[in-house]
């Protein structure tokens, strides 16, 4: 048994840590969050050259051919600094949809080209799932994909699409029939005629969200990813892998909040001694340590499960997401609390992490949703439920 990173993985970790420290100080992150893109395209090119964007993409699709474990190593470091990048949406959502789709049905030329371009960092992409209902459940997928000759014609709205206003391609979840199962996953170019994209107001300025309006957007049948009659077989594992990725990112962010809070309690003096010597403060920190270390265990295990494509993924993906995002939330809140008044200022970094924790906790389904997915992943379906 070896439940630790190997030498190569540790090297990736070190170089990610170094690069991110040099290029993503909080000031830089905040400055970028004010731009429309929200990231620096040069920096994205650079991490692509380092192989990050193709890390877990199979070599046959132009990737580096490493595993999900290497991917989560990088994600953890990104989370620690709220690293501004289209990486999550492109590599951890869209690329996964294409990779998972390729296991169900061969990728069309366009789709294979998109995956290779994502892996090379030449194109960005995202996944458009949620609609005004905001839920990741079959009845909420209403965006209609009507067949017209060899094309699909799309009409409807997608909300809360990460980087949706700037992504080169939008992997879109659409309904082509009447029943819940009749879902298709389509690769839609970001500049497709009829597609209107607006940056949405987002509580977390370091992760951009967009609203997409589809008015007679036309894509060829070859845009379909995976099974065109039943895209759940692609979308479900994509969501599970996305959950693992978001867990890894949130682990880094939670650790950052914890470290910051702990250091502050040792420096700040009240009543003639460091506040770290007060038991009420100590017990908060002890509980946070347990939450963060437990999250580390869960995120790493989930990374291994994803890398090995083990049958446990449908349970472990949501498990990791729920565990780590809750811990991040607790840590982000406590970080503000333990800083007192200064923690509530705009000046202080704590609120950026609080905002990110708010968003990570609900994106890809909130904690209750992921706990329900966990039970279903274990085969414990509600009695009398369909499928």
């Amino acid at each position, binding site marked *: *048994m*070896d*439940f*630790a*990173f*190997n030498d190569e*993985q540790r090297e990736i970790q070190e170089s990610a840590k170094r690069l991110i420290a040099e290029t993503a100080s909080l000031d830089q992150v905040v400055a970028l969050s004010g731009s429309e893109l929200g990231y620096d395209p040069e920096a994205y090119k650079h991490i692509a050259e380092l192989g990050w964007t193709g890390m877990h993409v199979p070599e046959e699709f132009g990737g580096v051919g490493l595993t999900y*474990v290497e991917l989560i190593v990088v994600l953890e470091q990104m989370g620690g600094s709220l690293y501004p990048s289209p990486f999550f949406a492109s590599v951890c959502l869209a690329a996964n949809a294409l990779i998972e789709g390729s296991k169900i049905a061969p990728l069309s030329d366009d789709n294979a080209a998109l995956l290779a371009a994502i892996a090379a960092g030449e194109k960005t992409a995202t996944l458009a799932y949620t609609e005004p209902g905001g839920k990741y459940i079959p009845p909420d997928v209403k965006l209609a994909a009507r067949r017209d000759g060899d094309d699909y014609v799309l009409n409807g709205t997608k909300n809360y699409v990460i980087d949706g206003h700037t992504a080169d391609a939008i992997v879109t979840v659409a309904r082509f029939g009447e029943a819940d199962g009749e879902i298709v996953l389509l690769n839609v170019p970001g500049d497709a005629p009829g597609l209107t994209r607006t940056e949405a107001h987002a509580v977390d300025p370091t992760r951009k969200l967009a609203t997409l309006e589809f008015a007679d957007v036309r894509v060829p049948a070859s845009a379909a990813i995976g099974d065109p009659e039943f895209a759940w077989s692609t979308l479900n594992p994509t969501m599970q892998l996305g959950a693992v990725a978001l867990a890894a990112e949130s682990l880094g962010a939670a650790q950052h909040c914890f470290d910051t809070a*702990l250091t502050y*309690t*040792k420096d700040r003096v009240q009543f003639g*001694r*460091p506040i*770290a*010597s*007060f*038991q009420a*403060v*100590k*017990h908060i*920190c*002890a*509980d946070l*340590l*347990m939450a963060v*270390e*437990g*999250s*580390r*265990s*869960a995120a*790493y*295990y989930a*990374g*291994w499960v994803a*890398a090995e494509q083990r049958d446990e993924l449908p349970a*472990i993906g949501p*498990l990791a997401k*729920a*565990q780590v995002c809750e811990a991040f939330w607790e840590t982000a809140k406590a970080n503000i609390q333990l800083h007192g008044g200064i923690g509530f200022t705009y000046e202080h970094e704590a609120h950026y992490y609080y905002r990110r924790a708010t968003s990570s906790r609900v994106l890809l389904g909130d904690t*209750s949703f992921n*706990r*329900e997915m*966990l*039970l279903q992943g*274990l085969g*414990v379906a*509600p*009695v*009398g439920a369909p499928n």
Partner: protein
Amino acid sequence: MDLRDTPGEAKLREEIRGWLEANYEPGISQSDWYKVLAESGWAAPLWPEQYGGRGASASEAIIFNQERQKIGAEPPPTGIGVPMAGPTIIAHGTEEQKERFLGPMLRGEEVWCQLFSEPGAGSDLAAIQTRAELKGDTWHVSGQKVWTTHAQLARWGILMARHDPSLPKHAGITYFIMDMQAEGVEIVPLKEMTGEAVFNEVFMDDVEIPDDLRVGALGEGWKVSMTTLANERMALGLGGLGGSDEDAEIKLEEADAESSLETMGKFIRRGPRALIELAERAGAINDPLIRDELARVYTMYEVNRFTGYRITTALMKGRGPGVEASTGKLSYNLLVRAVADLMIRIAGVGALGAPDDDKLLKVAERLNLVVPATSIYGGTDQIQRNIISERVLGMPKEPRTDAEQPFSEIKKGG
């Protein structure tokens, strides 16, 4: 990162399987099995060979434990002896003490108890008042211990006593091995909230202990006790690291109104499936609040299991476990509490007075009554948080007023 066996581990596993096949017979009596384990060194594989262990690596010990569980063979003697008194005697005892005590301990022939807590000294263990006075070569011990688990069964006790009240509290303590059959020892059972009496009061009235049963130097009792307590925390914490172990063959029939904490521990490890079964039976499996909590508790189990892999990896690489191990006891306590609460929630009024033939409900009823103990013994949850924050996180201790002056002059409880 790979959770499967390395080739070396796979080979070890084969060898251990072979050994178990050759040496374990289903239905073997506990005492015979203990003997087999002790003779082969598997009763305490990590101990040095000359003291009855195997000087084994952590991998060997861990793999042995896994394979033993798979075939449903009982663990080596547990309790206070092998997990706590043994390592303390090995670290601080004399050669004669090791010679005399370790063998019978490993064979499970002599039960041990822990004579630490007193009416005035629980969390604040260094506040003990039991006196030990040296006359010639013999110590004379008088005082009272309390909450002493299995004192009524024990042949020997590990004892902390104060040899000099004029010294500051930590400096005046010495550590002994006490003969529980000696004259002047009186054991009075204490009825626990469950109704049984597992722990006791132990009164000592001029009990004689020869100086060669002192463990460590005069005044080093506090330091020696740290070895005992660290091993206790480890033993209690490791209980939870197996996570959900569906192989752990605990039959529900074993559970009854008298079930020990150990039986309950086994039940807890098998827990998630039992919880789900209970929820299905009680018609609660469609209740979204119950489902949410089931998943949350399941997550606690799994997180403990994954953390166990991290600790195992560290041990197998010959590193001491890091921060992840320090939280073991507390996270196990929180898990056990959550399981008990959820069982009662699911069972509802069914858990108020379960019929004897409904083993699942009986477990729920029973667990609810035993579980308050886990967050108290072996250092309360609050004390665990103090330890984590001060020793792991390096947060400063609270200022204290009792550590410097003579023990005889400070305010005491009890």
